[in-house]
């Protein structure tokens, strides 16, 4: 992670949070249970809880219990989810009636969140290449009661172009550096060779994601890594390859702007509209979010 010292202004805070355990956070699934009802369950379970400032459905809970081991979790009343991973879906602003593609969807945290926001009243297509991960995706869709979702297993690079969408979420496969609080081995950062390799895949996926958007459609690109090669450099690349523009992300959360320069290389100035989320921003993992609009 040392190589990010130059771009992370509050480095001491960043380092401190990286070394702290993650809080227990979850998303209440209002497809199945109301927030009032869930708060009653929390009380019954003896958990204390605090709602996220930026999202009605997000909660941090305090308990010694393993939060995946309750009947309420088994029934799909909540999904265990980090605060950072709410952001890409909130940035997407899914609306009822839309056709939405989640190109790399497994295990389904974001797919089922989209279904929840639109109250199962959109057409949601969840795709992933990993067969075992797709099984987890389906189980989560069923558990959360997301009847508005279909599942396929295409390689995202060759997702059929005859289908067109109003919105696409590309939560790309990445080096996962932002998961350092879950997995301390990640604190040292990913191998550059791996980063460069996966960056090639990300550039391929984002082009296909744009190709299946309707004109005027919205793409949200997200990763859970800090590497500029997988974040700003992917967006900078696609701004040159496809007719898209960077949109502001209208969310009231703490974040750092996307960088416009790295190792002497300058990027499109609009990359400053993209978001870097560091562990100290939401007391969560790290990640990156960019919102693009396809020019018609």
């Amino acid at each position, binding site marked *: 992670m040392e190589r990010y010292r130059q771009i992370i202004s509050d480095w001491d805070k960043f380092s401190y949070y990286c070394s702290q355990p993650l809080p227990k956070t979850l998303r209440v699934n209002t497809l199945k249970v109301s927030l009032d009802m869930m708060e009653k369950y929390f009380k019954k379970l003896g958990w204390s809880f605090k709602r996220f400032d930026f999202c009605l459905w997000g909660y941090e809970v305090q308990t010694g219990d393993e939060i995946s081991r309750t009947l309420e979790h088994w029934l799909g009343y909540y999904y265990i989810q980090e605060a950072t991973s709410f952001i890409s879906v909130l940035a997407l602003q899914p609306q009822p009636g839309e056709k939405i593609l989640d190109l790399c969807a497994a295990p389904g945290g974001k797919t089922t969140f989209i279904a929840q926001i639109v109250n199962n009243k959109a057409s949601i297509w969840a795709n992933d290449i990993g067969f075992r991960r797709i099984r987890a995706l389906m189980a989560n869709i069923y558990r959360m009661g997301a*009847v508005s979702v279909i599942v396929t297993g295409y390689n995202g690079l060759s997702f059929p172009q005859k289908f067109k969408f109003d919105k696409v979420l590309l939560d790309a496969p990445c080096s996962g550096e932002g998961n350092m609080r879950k997995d301390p081995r990640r604190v040292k950062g990913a191998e550059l060779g791996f980063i460069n390799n996966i960056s090639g895949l990300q550039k391929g996926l984002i082009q296909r994601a744009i190709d299946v958007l309707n004109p005027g459609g919205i793409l949200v690109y997200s990763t859970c890594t800090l590497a500029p090669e997988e974040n700003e450099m992917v967006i900078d690349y696609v701004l040159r390859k496809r007719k898209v523009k960077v949109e502001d992300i209208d969310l009231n959360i703490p974040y750092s702007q996307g960088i416009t320069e790295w190792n002497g290389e300058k990027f499109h100035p609009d990359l400053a509209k993209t978001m870097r989320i560091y562990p100290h921003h939401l007391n969560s993992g790290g990640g990156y979010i960019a919102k693009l609009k396809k020019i018609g």
Partner: protein
Amino acid sequence: MPNSKKLVEEIKKYFEKRFGLSRKIWGHHIIILRNEIGWLINPQLYDWIFNIGNKAYSLGIPFVRLLPKGIKPTSWGLIFMGREITRNIIELGLEDLRGLLYRGRIKGSRDIETGYVALGYNGEIIGCGFYKDGVLENQIPKARRKSLLEILPQLK
């Protein structure tokens, strides 16, 4: 699938009669028959489903299995309907639930006609069972049964 309209109507009637589901449910959901499964979907998915052929692994949630001997409700489907189910629920206490999950069946005569039932625990619908001649059989699929067994010690 042959006679699919007729079969879908049969499924709806079955749920009405056996589980007391209101007809109103079908204003928001439709059933699509594919691969021996009746899938419960939101009507907006309809367009895609007809263009995608057999490439989809999953459509909405699996609601019933179409077996040679008839319709079998899935546990996912019954859990989804949850409190909409008003008939043929077998409420289980913790000991019964434990017995059913460990042994696959429990004995105990009940005033219920032979057939599939919704298993209830603590006011929640937790899956599907089959009742015949004083024996209740578990129909919750293996992986789900296993994960439910794991949380049993936490249940009160």
